[in-house]
């Protein structure tokens, strides 16, 4: 850590923490399995990314990671209603019911069944 005065050893609380600042935690892992386990444990299921040229690892990551948006070789900063072409958003939903990811105009609706008959009975 010599030569990097701002670098500190991460504590357990630093993983899974939303910094909202110019700080981040660094985790070194043995391979993709440990990375997936770390994400499973600490993710808020918002946006997760993998950087790799290996197609198999990329596909495994995109399939296995449970988040509203998963990325291969791109920044998580794109999770946004405007960026996705949905227009203004209310926010990014991290839950699974009704809306997931950018919660925009298109999700301010529900569905309705309409049935037109001419005397049908069951």
């Amino acid at each position, binding site marked *: 850590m010599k030569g990097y005065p701002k670098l500190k050893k991460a504590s357990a609380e630093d993983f899974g923490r939303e910094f909202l600042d*110019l700080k*981040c*935690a660094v985790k070194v892992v043995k391979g993709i399995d440990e990375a997936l386990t770390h994400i499973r444990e600490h993710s808020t299921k918002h946006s997760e990314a993998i950087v790799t040229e*290996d197609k198999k690892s990329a596909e495994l990551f995109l399939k296995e990671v449970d988040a509203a948006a998963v990325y291969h070789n791109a920044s998580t900063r794109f999770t946004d209603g405007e960026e996705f072409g949905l*227009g*203004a958003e*209310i926010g990014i939903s991290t839950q699974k019911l009704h809306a997931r990811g950018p919660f925009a105009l298109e*999700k301010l609706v529900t569905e309705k*069944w309409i049935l037109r008959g001419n005397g049908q009975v069951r």
Partner: protein
Amino acid sequence: MSEVLNLIKKTYNATPALRAVEDRQLKKILLMLADELEAQQKTILKANEKDVAKQKPGDPKTDRLRLDEKRIKNIANGIRKVSRLPNPSEKIIERKKLPNGLLLEKRTVPLGVVGAIFESRPNVTFDIAALCLRSGNACVLKGSIEAEQTNLAAIQLIHSVLKKNKLPAEVVTLLPAARESVSELFNAGKYVDVLIPRGSESLINFVRKNSQVPVIETGAGVCHVYVEQKADIGKAVKIVTNAKVSRPSVCNAMDTVIVDKAIAPEFLPE
């Protein structure tokens, strides 16, 4: 019935009037709202000054609360943008004839009444009202006490535009800024279809824990970028830097970078 619940009920009762409005008209209302907001910005800014004056000096919330000409312009342009988006309701998703001759159709319809609870940013009042009107939803808004005067001026403006278009003002309702409004909203499941908290994690947790109305949670993001051993270091550096640095205060910013041991000596110094 409490005064607050009565306001919520009036909004619920105003939904048929909103459903009767044609799409063209909804667009027109939003464009008019954007124009009026710019034309009457002095009134809004004056009210906003009163709110800002009540803040303690140096409070970081003051910046989020403050409006100026530029911010008003941004809000107005945001409303214009929403007006141009396609209306998401009345879309036919499925249509088929059943073997018994019944004609079945599934279409999208407005949620009904959307409730929103939000903190100091006064732009949210306009943003949510615009999105709800565009999609044919009525809304009840509960802003913060810090933004009370700004929100009151905003709702007056919205109401004047609604009235000019012969719509009941109740389709966009501002609840009293007092805390009691929140608990009334939590129990208004009969009249409110979804509740959307916007703001800090503590606000969102409080709403999720206490509301009987279904909550749509938009919340915290602890985002990871995993630099796998076969990563292109150039791409990885660019992506990790962008994910962290481009705007650290937002929810899609990176919080933890995970690095494969095999590539760490090469990647981390970069």
